[in-house]
């Protein structure tokens, strides 16, 4: 056990915890943030994605130790922003949400991508989403959603 401090959804938090825990478990069990999901537990599906210093990472293969003094934003924290509102509306408009299990991760991936590249082309969007598996949609409507968000949120990123 050790004390660790980091910023979680814009608030500084401190927790006494085994640093060998996966960030995913700490978020879900200690902070009750169940937006990040466990789909595979091995870095493959992106359902557990969160933003670490505003870049997408998979919280299932991020040890708690590695977030010391860093900034973590989960879907819960992101969902109060204007950027989220734009992305969410784009997903709704194109039909990018089916079972929803991949969706928080997809939204995080979209934010991470647009944050770095506000005008991605199709190929860049596909790269941006390549670590987020979706079994329901076949991706097209999600890709459309990212394009739509980039357009509707012009200037936000």
């Amino acid at each position, binding site marked *: 056990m050790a004390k660790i401090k980091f910023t979680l959804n814009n608030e500084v938090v401190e927790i006494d915890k085994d640093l060998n825990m996966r960030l995913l478990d700490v978020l879900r069990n200690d902070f009750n943030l*169940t937006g990040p999901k466990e789909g595979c537990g091995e870095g493959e599906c992106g359902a557990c994605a969160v933003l670490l210093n505003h870049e997408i990472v998979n919280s299932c293969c991020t040890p708690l130790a590695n977030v010391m003094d860093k900034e973590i934003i989960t879907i819960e924290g992101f969902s109060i922003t204007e950027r989220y509102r734009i992305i*969410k509306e784009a997903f709704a408009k194109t039909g990018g949400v089916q079972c*929803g*299990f991949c*969706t928080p991760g997809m939204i995080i991936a979209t934010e991470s991508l647009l944050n770095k590249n506000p005008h991605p082309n199709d190929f860049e969007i596909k790269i941006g989403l390549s670590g987020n598996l979706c*079994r329901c949609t076949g991706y097209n409507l999600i890709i459309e959603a990212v394009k739509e968000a980039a357009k509707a949120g012009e200037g936000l990123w």
Partner: protein
Amino acid sequence: MRDISTSINKVDNDEKTSGKAIYVADIKLDNMLYAFTVRSKIAKGKIIKIDYPELPLGYYIVDYKDIPGKNIVKVIFDDMPIFTEGDITYLYEPIALLIGPDKAVLSKLFAEVKIEYKEEEPVFAWKDSVIHYHFDKGLGKSALEEGKIIEYVYQTGYQEQAYIEPQGFIGYLETDKTTLIGSIQCPYYVKNAVIQALGAKDDEVRVIQAAVGGAFGGKEEFPSLMACQLAVALKKIKQPIQLVYEREEDMLVTTKRHPSRINFKASIKDNKINGLSVHVGIDGGATIGLSGVVLSRALIACTGAYAIDNLDVSGDVYKTNTVPNGAFRGFGAPQMFFAIEMFVEHIAMELGLDPLEFSKSILAKQGDYTSTMGVFRDPVLMPEMIEKALEVSDYNNKKTMFKKQQNLKGVGMSLFFHGCGFTGSGEKNIIKAKVRLKKQFDKVEILIAAVDMGQGVKTTFRKLVAHILEIDIDKVIFNNPDTDFVPDSGPTVASRTMMIVGGLVARATKEVKDRWNEGSFVVEKQYEQPDYIKYDESNFKGDAYPAYSWGVNVVEVEVDRFTYQVKVNKTWAFYDIGKAIDERIVIGQADGGLAQGLAYGYLEVMNHDKGKIMQKNMTDYIIPTAMDMCSMETYLYENPYAYGPYGAKGVGELSLIGGAPAVAKAIENAIGKKVFKIPVTPEYIMELMKNGKD
């Protein structure tokens, strides 16, 4: 008023995008315990002795001895024990649950369980037939005594549903009531199975659906097994328990699409198929479960989208010491449509005919007899759909052009249908669906057992009712099914939900509309089979389905000439689904189903080695990423079915069926060799390019 097909935003978007939707693993109850499943380490044999470690206070073992009712999971064919009583029939067969409050302790205890076995020789070959079916149409076998005979064998592999949310349940007792919240497709399957396992009364079991993170058939019958195990544990321990699989366990032990081997023999007269003999073998795995029903759907689809007068159809379910196979979107049809589509193409090639012209010349039309002497009663729009497909995909041009080119590009077209609803008299005799609407002041609540697993049931049903009543969708309530409140409207499977359950809901809604001024009341409706549907199950005679949805897929691929990797460049899809209750939702089903169908055809490899699934995680089992998928164009056709709401027929499964044959044919076109099995992997393509048949 707007046409019902006009899309609206899905009603559950916000909770899903914001991460607020509650899936099973998100639920935490006070004093909740966790359960790990103790499983066999051999594929066949007997347990001689189990040594459990000494359990600390608050830790439990639950096994077959704790089952108050029957040690059988009620499915369709009841042959799967809840926990083995000593006989092991497949690797990782469940033996017991190990339960306690601390996962770290459980994990340690788990590793200390010692089991001694007497091993027996497992059977992996397909030789023990446990179900055999046979039927004829017309002249049957004797039609194969004349004409030119063409024979080929086709094979399909496993496919894993790979829903992104693994299977799971949480359970607790409310006084005497065993309550289970699960990631499930069929609340009443679970409830009835648990009642039998506990020997409980109807009101002693309650099943509630949590948000479902994808299912695709994988959460049709398998959850009943987990639910029975958990219910037995709840009865013993009387504390809330969570049983949630992690990915690897899920992939190793849950049901998958049946691998198949399909032998075709055709006699050809005057460039027409005079007679067709087919044998379908499927690997059921260690238990039969619903393999028989999967087999019948495959057999009934044996003519593909074509009319063939003389048939000799047979099939077997083989029992092997492997993980049981079960429901998966399409349910036997994807195997058969791959095979028949390839066979018809290969026949045409052997006859020196243009495959598409040949296909068109034998297409089934309205009024033609089905394989079981039922009738295609509704108009068949396939010719129109094919014309459109040719036009927008530039198919003919590409097909000849690609053949000549150096780079390995190809196009393929598949023609297919899906029989909507349960096969045969299932709806009438087994399911007997019931729906209920509750009108209260200006609101109406839909009470049905249909599950929204992403396909949009919550949206389309609310929309349906609102549209008929001409009220705002906010005035229509639809909560996740809870068996304490909803009647048994049947399982969420077989592309039946909108057509059958929606049809009933529409009927009930009309009654609500007529009585609108009466204040608060309840309307119930029960399924009545259309009179003309008569089906003789044991002889495969009559109308196996009330209606059919039809499809055409065109797929363009490029095969890398150095690595034999396949890239799908573009797809065009054409579906007659009666009427779209929401176009965007249907497009979502169309894209997602086609992605699964394509991947079944060229990407998704799964096999077992001595009963052990080799691709046991998402790293090794390859499903498409955004990079692998391509732009998909979809065209919907209206062709209303009289008994479906607004004419709607089945949607969910249709879009998966055509992907594999279309991509396989496109690869054939690209490499100039015949394809006989899926998935068409780069390894197989390499083999074909060296030694394949032209």
